[in-house]
Every structure is written in structure tokens, then in C-alpha cells.
């Protein structure tokens, strides 16, 4: 369930490959399993890097990268059955992840693992295809939108029953949305209420199979953001007072569900087990059981894919090569809207803000970073250099955004020369007594970010810029971005959802306290474009606006995206019909009911 339209700081809990998620780690300490992992991959990463540095050759780089080129680029395709054999009924699939889930309550959930398990057993009004396009699930069709763009009318399917036989009606939908809308439910600890109440004027259920939402003004990201929550059973939770919803037994053991699989048990820290819902309204699933297995770390994911203890899992970049030759596995890889970027401090009242206010400096620094090198050596090829702030997975992405910033240290030097930054006796550039010297902060515990920071340090040193990397606790990093904002540069991973709106990050409204524009980027044209795009419902018109927006952002580079990540998934060859894609894995999985196993086990 990509529950948010805006960007999301990716925490350790997040979707991305946990191996390089140390920095997003909720606590960035080097914990035993993490350091074990570093033991394995860090020397490998560095020896490779050092080796290439010494070689200075691109041939070796190309050879390293080539291994990952042959992958199926599944982005945009739906479920991709891998054979044409006749599907059979029965058996199970075990999917392995390095994190346990937290809750089955879609209104409280804020992490993708919980969302994944919620999606297995609780259906939503709409859901997403692999490419991020919305499709109806509990709704009969996509909702009708009124002419003024402010009223969404959902017609529900009439053949949906909860697993206890009660029909699922608009009462349940209204109840679910009341939890984040009605004042009497304010004590529900939902993170969605603020955004929902900001945009929604009224919700109602005029008849048992109609649900209506009225927004305060046209708001294009609405459906992607708020129409994909699992619907809760009112007849189970409706009698609870607001505060009791937070700790309801249902949150740990949803005994009444509506999705393709029924909940069996959640052994906390170990696994969540589901069994087929034979009465599922879209047709009974083929599998008898689906298991979400919690494994110790990403190395364990790779190991257990090899032993067959798990049938499917996300492979960390450093493990991809070792699994490519595994005969029993099919690997699929695609770009996802997750990225690492760094923020320039632009607030002129802060020392670094004085430096970075100068556009030439921002551009020069980006030219000087060897991003293709980072992708090839640090990411093991599992990434794509970004040439726009919009992710390549988005319909609003412009592949021809200009300018781009290829690795060009000479041009970087020239830009700084022209801008009057001249090298001093110690090799560090300065202008008017101010030196190009600053600190880059990132969350502790992530070997990948650490490597990226070191590459940036070296690359910048080569053009006469002195940058000092500094690790801080993740929780402090967040405070730094949203609150205190006393940084020079911050390097952090983020995650965009399917809607291209980026207001929270790049609109000047995000500079308010608590907002995520902690780097103080204020550009009237960007504000106007983002605002207009968010209130325009016509997708082709929105697209044009976002194209303009991307060009301005490419010229301004207030917070350059270094690269978008690629994810590689391994699925056992005995499993057929796995439809992994960038947008249809961490929520309701419309393809899951059609998954089957060749051996019937």
C-alpha cells in the first residue's frame, strides 16, 4: 500500500534492501548481524573500488556492471507468469523478509512490511498495478469524479463477504475512514489523519454500496494517497472506543478478513501464516498457504533462497552475483522510486547557506561526483544515475530533462573558477574569505551511504573542496531535517510514491517547522507549478506541468538526487505467476491469488 503521495524518508523499516538500510536504521548502531554483513560485503565493495581506482579503467567497471544488465526489466509489466504450463491448485509459498511486521491495522500501519501482510488479507477500495496505475479492487470500477473535481463516488462490489459471512458494505468503508476523519476517533494513533482531514471536507455512505468523498479543493494525489487502505470490519471493531482501537486484538490477529488469504497466526519475530480464502470474491487463490517469514538479515534471505527455506525474497546488491548462477531461482530486477540524495543548506542566515545559495557551486559539486562509478562499485550496479527529481517509474518522468550532470570534474573546476572560487595555498578554494569547506551528515550504520560519502569527499577534494563526512543517529538526523536545520549538507535515502507530487519536499510550504524542506528551498515558480499540478486532475496537463518543474529543478539542483535504486528479487522456479513490480508488492497484491507452485507442495 503506497500510502503516501509524497516522499518518504526511508527508515530501516522501509522497503529498501535492509542491507544498506543501516543508515535508515531506526538506530544506526552497528549491531552484530549488521556488522557481520559488513564483514562480508564491505571489504568486497572496497577492494573492488580500490582496484578499479588503481586500474583507472572503465573496462573492468563495464564487466562488473554487465552481470546485471541481462535482467528482465519488469517495470511496467503486470504479473509475469514464467511458463505456460497449466496452473495447479495446492501448495504454499514462503516469502522471506529481514523484518517483522508491526500491525494488521491499515489505519495505524506506517511500514511496508505490515502493509504487505495487511494486503494479503484485507482488501482496499483501489490498488496499484506494477507500474503504479490504479485499479479497482473492492470498488466495482474507478470512482466517478464530479465535474468540479472535488467529489469521488465509489461504487462497491456487491459480492464481497467478510470471512465470517457478513457482507462487506459501505458501512465498513465509512467506519474505516471515520477512524482518520471523525472527531470522536481523534485518539486513534493514526498517522494519516492530518493529511486526510487537511484535504477532505466530508465522507458519506448514501447507500450500502456507495461511498462518497468530498475534498475541500481539487487534489490530484488523493486516490493514490488515500484510496488504498485495507478496509476494516465495522462489526468487529465498531463498538470499541477510540483509544481501544490502538491496542485492539484485531491488530495482532485479524480473525475477520476480506482478502484472498485468511489470517492463521502471527508468531511474532518468526512468521505470519495465511491460508486460502475459498470464498474470495475475485476467485479462490490457488495456493493453500502463504507464509511471510522473518529471517535474520539479507544474507539470510540469500542463504534461504539457496536452501529453499524461502521461495521468494529481495536480494541485496552484494548477493546478486552469487545468486545469478543458482539454477533453482529466477531473478527479476527493476528500478524503484527509492533514491539517495543530498540537501544543500540554502538558508542564507546559516554559514553554509551563504555558500550554497550560489547556483554555480551547487552545479559544480554535482558535476564533480562520479555517480556512474558509485552505481557500479558501491551499489554493485543496482541503481540508475538520476537525471531528474522525478523517478523513472513515474508517468510524469521526463527522460529528456535538461540540464544533466554527467561526471565532469574539469567542468566543475571551470564553473568554480568562473564564479571566483580560487584555490588557496592548501588547495581549498575560497572566495571573499569564505572557504569551500563544510560537513556532510548522514545516519550512522549504513555501509553504502558511508561509501557514497567517501566517494563524494574524494571527488570534491579533487576540485578543491573540503568536505568532512559525519555520522549521526537516525533520530537526530530527522530532527535536523524537520526541526533544528543547522546542517551544511545531509545525505539521506528517500522514497517517492506513485503520485508525482513532490510538494512536501520542494515547495516552500515545507520549510515550516515539521516540514521536510529543511534545506530552505524557496522558488516561486516551483511553488506555482507544484500547486497547479496538484490541483489539476487531467493527467496529460499535469504531465506538462511536471515536465516544466523537472527542468527547473535540474537547473536549480537544491537537493540533487544521486541515483534511483534497482531492486532484484529471487523467486524459486517452482513458483509461477509472481508479479513483483515497483508498486504492487507492499500492499494488496492483485496477482497473489493466481500464484501457483509446480510441485503442488
Amino acid at each position, binding site marked *: 500500500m503506497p500510502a*503516501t503521495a*509524497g*516522499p*518518504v*524518508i526511508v*527508515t*530501516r*523499516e*522501509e522497503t529498501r534492501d535492509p542491507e544498506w538500510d543501516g543508515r535508515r536504521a*531506526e*538506530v544506526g548502531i552497528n*549491531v*552484530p*548481524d549488521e*556488522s*557481520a554483513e559488513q*564483514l562480508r560485503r564491505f571489504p568486497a565493495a572496497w577492494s573492488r573500488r580500490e582496484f578499479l581506482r588503481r586500474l583507472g579503467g572503465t573496462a573492468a567497471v563495464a564487466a562488473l556492471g554487465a552481470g546485471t544488465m541481462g535482467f528482465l526489466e519488469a517495470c511496467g509489466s503486470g504479473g509475469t507468469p514464467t511458463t505456460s504450463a497449466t496452473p495447479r491448485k495446492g501448495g*504454499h509459498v514462503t516469502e522471506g523478509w529481514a523484518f*517483522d511486521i*508491526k*500491525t494488521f491495522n491499515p489505519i495505524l500501519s*506506517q*511500514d511496508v512490511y505490515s502493509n504487505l501482510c495487511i494486503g494479503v488479507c484485507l482488501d482496499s477500495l483501489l490498488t496499484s498495478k506494477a507500474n503504479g496505475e490504479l485499479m479497482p479492487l473492492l470498488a466495482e470500477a474507478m470512482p466517478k469524479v464530479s465535474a468540479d473535481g472535488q467529489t469521488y463516488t465509489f461504487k462497491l462490489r456487491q459480492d464481497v463477504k467478510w470471512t465470517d459471512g457478513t457482507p462487506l458494505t459501505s458501512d465498513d468503508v465509512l467506519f474505516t475512514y471515520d477512524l482518520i476523519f471523525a472527531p470522536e476517533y481523534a485518539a486513534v*494513533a493514526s*498517522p*494519516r489523519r*492530518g*493529511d486526510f482531514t487537511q484535504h477532505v471536507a466530508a465522507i458519506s455512505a448514501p447507500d450500502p454500496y456507495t461511498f462518497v468523498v468530498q475534498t475541500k479543493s481539487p487534489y490530484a494525489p488523493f486516490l493514490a*494517497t488515500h484510496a488504498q487502505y485495507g478496509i476494516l470490519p465495522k462489526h468487529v471493531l465498531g463498538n470499541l472506543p477510540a*483509544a481501544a482501537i*490502538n*491496542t485492539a486484538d484485531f*491488530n495482532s490477529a485479524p480473525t475477520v478478513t476480506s482478502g484472498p488469504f485468511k489470517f492463521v497466526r502471527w*508468531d*511474532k*519475530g518468526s*512468521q505470519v*501464516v495465511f491460508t486460502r480464502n475459498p470464498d474470495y470474491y475475485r476467485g479462490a487463490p490457488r495456493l493453500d*498457504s502463504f*507464509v511471510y*517469514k522473518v*529471517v*535474520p538479515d539479507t544474507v*539470510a534471505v540469500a*542463504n*534461504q533462497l*539457496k*536452501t*529453499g*527455506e524461502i521461495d521468494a525474497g529481495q536480494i541485496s546488491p552484494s548477493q546478486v552475483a552469487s545468486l545469478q548462477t543458482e539454477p533453482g531461482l529466477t531473478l527479476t530486477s527493476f528500478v524503484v522510486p527509492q533514491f539517495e540524495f543530498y540537501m544543500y543548506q540554502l538558508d542564507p542566515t546559516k554559514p553554509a547557506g551563504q555558500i550554497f545559495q550560489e547556483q554555480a557551486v551547487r552545479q559544480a559539486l554535482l558535476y564533480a561526483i562520479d555517480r556512474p562509478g558509485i552505481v557500479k562499485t558501491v551499489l554493485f550496479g543496482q541503481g540508475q544515475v538520476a537525471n531528474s527529481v522525478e523517478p523513472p517509474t513515474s508517468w510524469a518522468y521526463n527522460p529528456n530533462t535538461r540540464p544533466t550532470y554527467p561526471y565532469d570534474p574539469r567542468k566543475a573546476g571551470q564553473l568554480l573558477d568562473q564564479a571566483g572560487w580560487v584555490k588557496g595555498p592548501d588547495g581549498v578554494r575560497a572566495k571573499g574569505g569564505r572557504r569551500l569547506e563544510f560537513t556532510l551528515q548522514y545516519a550512522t550504520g549504513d555501509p553504502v551511504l558511508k561509501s557514497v560519502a567517501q566517494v563524494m569527499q574524494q571527488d570534491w577534494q579533487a576540485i578543491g573542496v573540503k568536505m568532512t563526512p559525519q555520522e549521526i*543517529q537516525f*533520530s537526530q538526523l*530527522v*530532527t535536523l531535517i524537520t*526541526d533544528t536545520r543547522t546542517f551544511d549538507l545531509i545525505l539521506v535515502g528517500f522514497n517517492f510514491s506513485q503520485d508525482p507530487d513532490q510538494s*512536501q*519536499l520542494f515547495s516552500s510550504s515545507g520549510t515550516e517547522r*515539521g*516540514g*521536510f524542506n529543511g534545506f530552505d528551498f524557496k522558488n516561486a515558480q516551483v511553488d506555482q507549478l507544484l500547486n497547479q499540478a496538484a490541483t489539476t486532475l487531467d493527467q496529460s496537463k499535469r504531465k506538462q506541468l511536471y515536465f516544466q518543474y523537472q527542468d527547473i529543478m535540474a537547473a536549480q539542483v537544491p537537493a540533487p538526487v544521486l541515483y534511483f535504486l534497482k531492486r532484484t528479487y529471487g523467486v524459486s522456479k517452482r513458483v509461477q505467476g509472481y508479479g513483483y513490480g515497483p508498486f504492487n508488492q507492499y500492499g494488496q497484491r492483485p496477482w497473489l491469488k493466481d500464484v501457483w507452485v509446480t510441485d503442488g507442495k
Partner: protein
Amino acid sequence: MAGYVVRRLLTAVPVLFGVTLITFLLMHFTAGNYVPGLQLDPNLKPSDIARIRANLGLDRPLVVQYLDWIGIGALFKAVGLAGVLGGSHNIDPGILEGNFGRSLIDGSPVLASVLGRLPNTLELTATAIVVGLALAVPVGVVSALRRGSRLDQFLTAASVAGFAVPQFWLGLLLILLFSVEFHAWGLPWLPSSGAVSPLGGGGVVDRLQHLALPATVLAFFYLSSWSRFVRSSMIETLSQDYVRTARAKGMSERRTVYVHALRNAVAPLVTLIGLELPGLVSGALVVEVVFGWPGIGLLAFQRALQYDYTTVMGITTFAAVLVVLGNLLADVLYAVIDPRVRYS
């Protein structure tokens, strides 16, 4: 003796108080204004954060939160002083009343989570301690009897290694060999994580298969330390006068060593094991994490990473109580085993 036990229990009170206070402060200062369980989502309005913090009671002054957590709040309420602590949040019973609170992550009662994990942890640690002990005594005795021999040198080297090799590394090595490679070679292989198979697991064979690798790592550690202890204790005992007397009286070597010397040499080991009692619950964190063993250590580890204050504080307090009790038990046992020890 009874007076001694009571005194010891009384001195434990400030210790436990200190433990709860330090744990509490550490958790709060690490997490700062972070709201546990929430990813950092720009859609999350400051109003959401404020509301959720208030719901969790995190908006109150630290002192009030602490007092509420340990349960003084409920005492105050009972005597009509609830207003002192601020009325915005429900005042629940605290750990003084046996209520460890609810997890900030999943809302489930902390004590139930901890107790739910206890059997798994005990299964692992008890197995390791029993196996470790069963091997440590013969290994130590053989080393002592053949002091300086090649065998002794080998066993000494092995136990130093057992002490020095990090458990996570040994664990990963065993997984690589007995799970991944054995599977690749077509040999019978062992599962690499978890306590039971997710589907249809839980039988004795299934449990033993899952137990084998983590218990080996942990047992190796105990074996290393205890066999050293038995060895030195045995060497010391064998040089005692009564052993020489027994030999002089013509007692068989076997009887001298295994009846007279061994019993005396092993007695102090009981104290050592008593000191390990808290380890029954808390000693397996690293092994649990490496093998995804759903015990208390893994729970503490996962929840610390999620800033789940209440669960971490609950586990720490739980472990602290066990340490205090384990130490006391060891001291008392010592007096029971060695009548010369007197407590006054």
C-alpha cells in the same frame, strides 16, 4: 540465613531502581522527539506527531513519565494525588503493580510478549548449558590428568578459541557450512533460522533440527569457559594432601580421581553456574539474532532498533531482577554446598 536473604533483597531495591532510571533515560535521550513506530513521512503533519505522542503519553515531563511507568502514578492516584502528575494521560498501574505497560510498536502488553518468548529462550540456553556442562567436566578432567600433553594443549587451544571467536561469526560459519553448502552438496542439511518450520513445524524432530546450530554455538562458549575452570580446579585438588593420603592408602587411581578429587573440584562450579542463571534468559542475544531465534534477546534487539521504549525497558527490568536473584541464589547455594561458608 533468612536475615541475610532479606538484607540482600533490600539492597537490591536501589539497584533495581537505578537500572530502571538509567534504562528509561537512555531510551528517551536516544530517541529524542522521534515517535516510535512511525516512518518519517512528510505526509505526517506536525499535528499527527503531536497527537500520537500525546496518545502515548510522551508529551508529559520526563519525571512524570518515569513515575507513571514504574507505577508511582497509580499509587498517587490511589491516594487521590493524580492531579500532581498531570491529567492528560490515563494513569495506569506500573511495574510496581506488575504492569510493564504496552509496546509502543504493536500495542501488545510487554510482559506477555516477554513471557511468550521465554520458552524459546529457555529451550536454547538450557540445552546449551546442559550440553556445555556435560562436555566441560570430562574435557576439564582429561586436560588436568594429562596436563602438558598434546591433548591438553589442543583442548586448551580449542577453549581459548571458543572464548575468542565471536558468536555471530561462528554462527554464520555454521549456517554457511551445515545449511547452505550441505544443501548444495546434496547432504542432509540443517535449517538456518527460526525455532520451528513455519508450516507443519513444531514436532520434536523439527525443533531439534532448528535447535542444533544455535545451541552448538552457545554450548561451545560455555564448554570453553567451564572446561578451563574444571581443569584448573582439578589440578589444584589433585595436589591436595588428602588426595596424596588416599593414594598412599592404596586407593585405586580411578577411585581417587573420580570420587575423591572430582567431587571437590567440581563443587565451586555450582557457583559459577548459579551466576549464569540470568544468562538463561539474557545470555543468548547474539545467537538469537544470528539465527533468528524468536527469544527474548531477539525481541530486545528488534525493539531497541524501533525505539520501542516500553518493551526495551520492560526487558531490561526483567533481566535486572533475574540478575539480582541469580546472584543471590548463587551466594546461597555456595553456603549450602560448602558448610564452611557462613553468612552473618
